């Protein structure tokens, strides 16, 4: 036991002016978000930890006396010996390493009562810090169902800290927890455990060195010394605060010595902790049925029920049926359910535009507001229904526990290209939009795997490409009505082309550029639970808001810029030809500049303008074509598309030949499958990878591939006489 942990009371706040800061920590799946929502309600702020892409959630809770308490929801972690960026943030905040976050005055640990041993491992590490801790035992009802009687009073007595039994999902125990949070003074933990004798001298020496040379407080130094002896990689433990040379030398000399003696230091340390936890659990947990079965699951327990579900849900045949069924339902919902609110949004935007148009006299400012700003805002929020439905489903799958099964089922497939099952959901989400897909890669621990997933995600055909595909298919087929079989067949081809590209490049990058250790698939499969709809909606709203902030601002700014480029400078008054204003504008000039580059693909400068404007969102291609080929606007989508199709068919090159030949239409579709044309995605990738290097690489390799493929297709097609 450390010398400095004598149980002296510590006041809740060092400075009377500042509200006390509490950190909420726990294993993933312990019910942390539910507890956080129950404590803070709507008083939450979601942001990012600067420098890393880890979600930062801070909320305000109120004590029984109405005093405001700051509550930081730290990312779920299994250990302070962090393995993912998420866990590193949890470790750094608790060790007081982050300048942007105050060191918490008190720590609230949440542990899943049904799975106490493993949950207490993190708690055990946190108790080393010698700070005031409140332990919440969550899911006491499920533990009781599983036949476990947990004596919280005994645990409280053993650890010397408040232990609150709780059922966060039903709001039980929240009042008791608030009472504990409100206590003016909290006892320090009585945390006695025996560091293995072979390691004890090293722990003291490292603690002394960290205090002397690395300016750490004595208790933090001891906790860090223990972490350095848990994870064989000291670089990972020290993170952004590198070790001083003397400490490093000391650590190396001990490791060399142990190696000579054949001491498995890391193993012994972890084993010693689990031994201490085992003794604790033996005193605290009373199994109702003294002789549990081999699987340890009581008949009525959540695990037994979960097992019955999994017997089907991960069955070699039914597992796939269910898996594909869930994925199909999700996409059906995204593409059909979203139509309704999307119609409302279009209506609302049209109505607003009319009202605003009536208010502002015609002129440049009028055009800027109507065609630039309002159209730009529409471009952002039109995707929102689809994105929200996607987030809703992801939240639902996460909170029920099916997400882990999806990774479990798909791992073998993903391993073929060098990734693991956790890359599956980000890639799947990218069929709706690459931005939530890229954001969802945060659950992937291995930085290289995460980067590969981000790099290939935009190959999945997103919903903004669909209108472009549909228009080009209509222009490609000579009949007025596209036969359903042709349309479905071509769409399927395009979607599989993108998917194939994603897998091919993932494999290629894992083989070459981003070689790394074969990925691990160490994943907890939590018992199935009924989803908490309140939490799912909370999360959906939060993530939706992040989407609007990240993507929305970029899309809006770009829409304004592109509007300006397409409308300035104005052509001279006497120009007669209808397409002149655009040809005369900056956009038209840029189109002509890029024409030599895209001419070998069969595209002319007018298509070039469409490609350029697609950078705001790919579906802008359609409205861009409408403007270029002067198609009369129509309130009805079907009529509008039919008119546009006719206009595309009638479009000619200067020499009088057809512009949109079937070959050109096909080539354009292929271009849209492969090219990186979305600035909003690039902006999000820059944020997630912390620089411009990877988004620029992505822009280059994807668009390069698109160009090369289209070049081959067009030239071969021409040679064959198409």
């Amino acid at each position, binding site marked *: 036991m450390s010398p400095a942990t004598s149980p002296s009371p510590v006041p809740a706040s060092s400075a009377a002016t500042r509200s006390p800061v509490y950190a909420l920590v726990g294993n993933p799946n312990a019910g942390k978000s539910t507890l956080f929502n129950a404590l803070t309600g709507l008083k939450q702020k979601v942001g990012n930890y600067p420098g890393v892409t880890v979600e930062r959630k801070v909320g305000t809770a109120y004590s029984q006396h109405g005093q405001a308490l700051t509550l930081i929801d730290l990312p779920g972690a*299994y*250990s302070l*010996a962090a*393995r993912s960026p998420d866990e590193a943030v949890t470790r750094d905040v608790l060790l007081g390493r982050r300048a942007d976050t105050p060191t918490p005055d008190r720590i609230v640990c949440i542990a899943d009562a*049904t*799975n*106490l*041993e*493993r949950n207490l*491992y993190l708690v055990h590490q946190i108790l080393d810090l010698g700070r005031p801790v409140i332990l919440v035992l969550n899911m006491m009802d499920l533990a009781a169902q599983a036949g476990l009687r947990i004596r919280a009073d005994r645990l409280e007595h053993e650890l010397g800290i408040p232990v609150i039994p709780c059922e966060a999902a039903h709001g039980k125990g929240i009042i008791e927890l608030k009472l504990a949070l409100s206590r003016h003074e909290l006892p320090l933990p009585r945390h006695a455990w025996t560091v293995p004798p072979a390691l004890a001298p090293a722990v003291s020496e490292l603690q002394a060195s960290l205090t002397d040379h690395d300016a750490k407080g004595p208790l933090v130094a001891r906790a860090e010394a223990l972490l350095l002896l*848990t*994870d*064989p*990689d000291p670089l990972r433990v020290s993170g952004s605060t590198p070790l001083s040379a003397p400490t490093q030398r000391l650590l190396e000399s001990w490791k060399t010595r142990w190696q000579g003696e054949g001491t*498995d230091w*890391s*193993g012994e340390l*972890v*084993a010693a902790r*689990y031994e201490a936890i085992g003794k604790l659990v033996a005193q605290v947990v009373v199994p109702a049925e003294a002789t549990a079965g*081999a*699987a*340890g699951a009581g008949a009525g327990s959540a*695990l037994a029920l*979960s*097992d019955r579900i*999994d017997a089907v849900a*991960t*069955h*070699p045949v039914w*597992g*796939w049926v269910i898996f594909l069924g869930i994925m199909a339902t999700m996409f059906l919902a995204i593409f059909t359910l979203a139509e309704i609110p999307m119609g409302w949004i279009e209506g609302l935007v049209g109505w607003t535009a009319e009202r605003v148009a009536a208010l502002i006299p015609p002129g440049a400012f009028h055009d800027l507001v109507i065609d630039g700003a309002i159209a730009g805002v529409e471009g952002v929020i039109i995707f929102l229904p689809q994105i929200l439905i996607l987030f809703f489903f992801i939240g639902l799958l996460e909170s029920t526990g099916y997400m*882990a099964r999806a990774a*479990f*089922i798909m*791992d*073998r*497939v993903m*391993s073929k290209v060098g990734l693991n*099952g956790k890359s599956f959901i980000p890639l799947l989400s990218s069929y709706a939009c690459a931005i939530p897909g890229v954001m969802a890669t945060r659950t992937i621990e291995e930085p290289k795997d995460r980067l590969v997933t981000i790099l290939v995600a935009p190959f999945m055909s997103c919903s903004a490409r669909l209108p472009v595909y549909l228009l080009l298919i209509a222009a490609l087929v000579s009949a007025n009505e596209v036969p359903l079989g042709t349309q479905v067949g071509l769409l399927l081809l395009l979607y599989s082309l993108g998917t194939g590209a994603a897998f091919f490049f993932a494999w290629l990058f894992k083989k070459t550029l981003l070689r790394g*250790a*074969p990925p*691990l*698939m*160490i*994943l*907890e*499969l*939590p*018992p199935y639970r009924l989803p908490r709809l309140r939490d799912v909606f909370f999360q959906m709203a939060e993530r939706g808001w992040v989407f609007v902030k990240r993507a929305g601002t970029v899309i809006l700014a770009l829409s304004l810029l592109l509007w300006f480029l397409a409308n300035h400078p104005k052509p001279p008054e006497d120009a007669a030809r209808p397409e002149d204003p655009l040809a005369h504008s900056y956009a038209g000039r840029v189109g002509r500049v890029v024409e030599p580059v895209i001419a070998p693909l069969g595209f002319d400068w007018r298509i070039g303008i469409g490609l350029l404007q697609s950078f705001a969102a790919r579906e802008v291609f359609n409205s861009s074509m409408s403007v270029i080929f002067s198609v009369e606007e129509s309130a009805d989508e079907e009529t509008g598309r039919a008119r546009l199709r006719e206009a595309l068919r009638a479009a000619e090159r200067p020499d009088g030949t057809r512009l949109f030949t079937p070959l050109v239409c096909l080539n354009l579709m292929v271009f849209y499958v492969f090219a990186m044309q979305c600035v909003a995605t690039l902006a999000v990738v820059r944020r997630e990878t912390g620089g411009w290097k990877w988004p620029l690489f992505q822009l280059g390799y994807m668009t390069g591939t698109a160009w090369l493929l289209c070049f081959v297709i067009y030239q071969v097609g021409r040679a064959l006489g198409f």
Partner: protein
Amino acid sequence: MNLAQLSIGASATVRAYPQAGAAFTRLREMGLLPGTRITLVRAAPLGDPLEIQVRGYRLSLRKSEAALVEVAPAAEATE
């Protein structure tokens, strides 16, 4: 005998696994230690990864890691 060779539903006690390797540090911290009793619950539909029960919860790991975990099968009598 190693973990990957267990038959589905069989229980065993972990005997040893490699000291080095990121996978094994984390597996240890997740409670998989020499002397820990485990049960192989099932394999994924495509045969890999595996699902094991350890310390009252379910954990998935790939066969490639499982093959490096040495186990002693539990005696039939305890079943």
